[in-house]
């Protein structure tokens, strides 16, 4: 099943023409409306009118997360604010988050793309879709919500958290499709086992999971325990949110919605394209965004292009599930965390050394993160009250700045890193996906 077969199954030849037309007008608008890109084009001596084939894409500059931060909040917008009808923000970044705007047309188009993702994952208008993504600045909740409504399905905006209630809703409202993070799906499966709910007695058929890294083993586990067909999908706030790429029921890679996004895979160190099928960093260019167009945005996500065509009939190329990050960012309970943010948060609290390590574990289905940090004096170990107070302050600061909770463990000075301090690994990820 397709939502927009005239696009999803269009010939590669027609697609190339459409991409060229859309990219040419995007470049024109970027050079006219976004000072950041106008400067970049001038520095490179690049004339957008000389852009004649998709091959020329390689000549264009990259856009990085740092560029977005420097132009915070509205510097990258290609339309005046009064044309923006919605703002979302990327999860868990420090002071300067990334603010992404949508015009009326952007919101409409987003709904269509999310509807494609849902359709590819098996959902039809007859389904009851429970969206257990956070509704808020995070794009997951609203993105899927509008898509499912456009599709004509019955939408339950249950948002995240409160597992007992989620399970109750699933039973009573006869939910047939679950949309959330894969780890939350596993957590719900565990909670069902705890309260004695038999997944076979539920109406669940489909699971659409995204917003974090997961594996084939995890898919098998989820499908087995929830008795559903689970598909992977991919999106990011900077590009739009959910709707960028998604698996079809063949489950052999995620189809990129290529009529709206151009995907490249590059070597993160050289910036050059990798050989077809090789692993590298995903770079995305938006072709139709009005408010927040992005040129060659470096996602930091590692994947590879899957060669060959998909038996589902879609002609859009496929990327592999996200295989990791090209930087040190990690995802904790759906929130993107950079160690630098953790460091910045720790530095605001007196009494500690700028030495830390983040240890990630998976307990059951949920991720936990412990920050090990060196106390600057021994007094914190001599006085239990002082110790507890410092730990509490650190935990509170971390949660408010990074946006997700951490456990904090004080360690003695110079105990974390031997010899030259702080050269050891900042993040130890013990989670098994």
């Amino acid at each position, binding site marked *: 099943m397709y939502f927009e077969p005239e696009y999803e199954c269009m010939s590669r030849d*027609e697609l190339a*023409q459409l991409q060229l037309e859309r990219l040419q*007008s995007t470049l024109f608008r970027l050079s006219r409306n976004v000072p950041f890109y106008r400067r970049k084009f001038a520095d490179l001596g690049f004339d957008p009118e000389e*852009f*004649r084939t998709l091959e020329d894409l390689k000549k264009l500059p990259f856009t990085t997360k740092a560029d977005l931060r420097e132009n915070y909040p509205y510097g990258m917008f290609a339309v005046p604010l009064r044309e923006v009808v919605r703002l979302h923000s990327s999860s868990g970044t420090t002071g300067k988050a990334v603010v992404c705007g949508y015009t009326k*047309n952007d919101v409409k188009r987003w709904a269509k793309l999310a509807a494609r993702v849902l359709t590819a994952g098996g959902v039809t208008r007859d389904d009851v879709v429970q969206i257990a993504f956070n509704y808020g600045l995070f794009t997951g909740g609203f993105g899927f919500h509008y898509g499912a409504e456009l599709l004509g399905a019955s939408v339950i905006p249950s948002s995240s958290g409160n597992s007992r209630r989620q399970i109750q809703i699933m039973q009573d409202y006869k939910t047939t499709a679950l949309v959330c993070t894969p780890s939350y799906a596993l957590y719900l499966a565990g909670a069902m086992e705890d309260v004695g709910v038999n997944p076979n007695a539920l109406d669940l058929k489909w699971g659409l999971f995204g917003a974090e890294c997961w594996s084939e083993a995890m898919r098998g586990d989820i499908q087995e325990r929830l008795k559903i067909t689970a598909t992977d999908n991919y999106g990011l706030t900077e590009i739009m949110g959910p709707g960028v790429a998604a698996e079809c029921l063949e489950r052999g890679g995620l189809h990129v919605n290529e009529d709206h996004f151009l995907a490249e895979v590059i070597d993160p160190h050289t910036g050059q394209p990798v050989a077809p099928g090789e692993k590298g960093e995903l770079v995305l260019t938006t072709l*139709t965004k009005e408010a927040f167009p992005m040129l060659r945005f470096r996602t930091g996500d590692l994947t590879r292009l899957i060669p060959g065509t998909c038996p589902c009939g879609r002609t859009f190329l496929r990327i592999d599930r996200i295989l990791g990050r090209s930087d040190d960012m990690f995802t904790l309970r759906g929130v993107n965390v950079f160690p630098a943010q953790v460091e910045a948060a720790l530095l605001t609290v007196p009494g500690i050394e700028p030495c830390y390590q983040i240890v990630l574990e998976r307990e059951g289905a949920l991720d936990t993160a412990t920050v090990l940090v060196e106390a600057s004096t021994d007094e914190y170990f001599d006085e239990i009250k002082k110790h507890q107070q410092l730990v509490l302050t650190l935990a509170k600061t971390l949660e408010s700045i990074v946006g997700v909770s951490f456990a904090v463990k004080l360690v003695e000075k110079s105990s974390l890193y031997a010899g030259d301090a702080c050269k050891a690994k900042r993040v130890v990820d013990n989670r098994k996906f």
Partner: protein
Amino acid sequence: MLRLKNVDVHYGKVHAVRRASLHVRPGEVVALIGGNGAGKTTLLTTISGLVRPSGGEVLFMDAPITRSAPERIVRAGLSHVPEGRHVFKPMSVEDNLLLGSYSRYSMQTRPRVQEDLEDVFALFPVLGERRSQAAGTLSGGEQQMLAIGRALMSRPAMLLLDEPSMGLAPQVVRDIFKLIVRLKAERGLTVLLVEQNARAALKIADRGYVLETGRIVLQGPADELLENRDVQRAYLGRDLDREE
């Protein structure tokens, strides 16, 4: 069905169309909108072979027509209704129409041409009533119908329509646009429509392109263009500053 890739057109030193890329799929009505002198008519005449592009490529039904003679392009199934209609005023309505079938006229096709003539009269009863009248005596709206009828006489798969609403009364404009919708729905005709009347054009179109000083600056589904503030401000006559 029709595909343009990086088409450039120069009139002497004037760069009239810059790197224009557009496509029209079978059965689509696509609107090309833009202000005076944006290059809309130049682009249409380039497609129909009356003007030679200085660069780029034009494909019709997957065959290159960039350097084809206009009459060959008509025979290939692409018919142009020019701006200002250009009917032959002293000639009768019927003769004007028969001229439209010139590209395929022969002894064998005569009976079929006759059928097509009756077909056009069925589509535009008013032309049937005035078949022997001189075209110059028709009203503006009737002349526009005649120009479209003449283009249909070559049995085109696709129609290039240049400013069909120009100089016509609002009611007549509505009739002409209704007719375009009918041609698409009943005959599966593909249409590339150039219009200054952007709102009317986008309302009946599937997709649209916005041309500005020879460049395609925007493109997309017609409903999105109608919602686009730049289009509203520049071409749909909405004064957004005053509204707010």
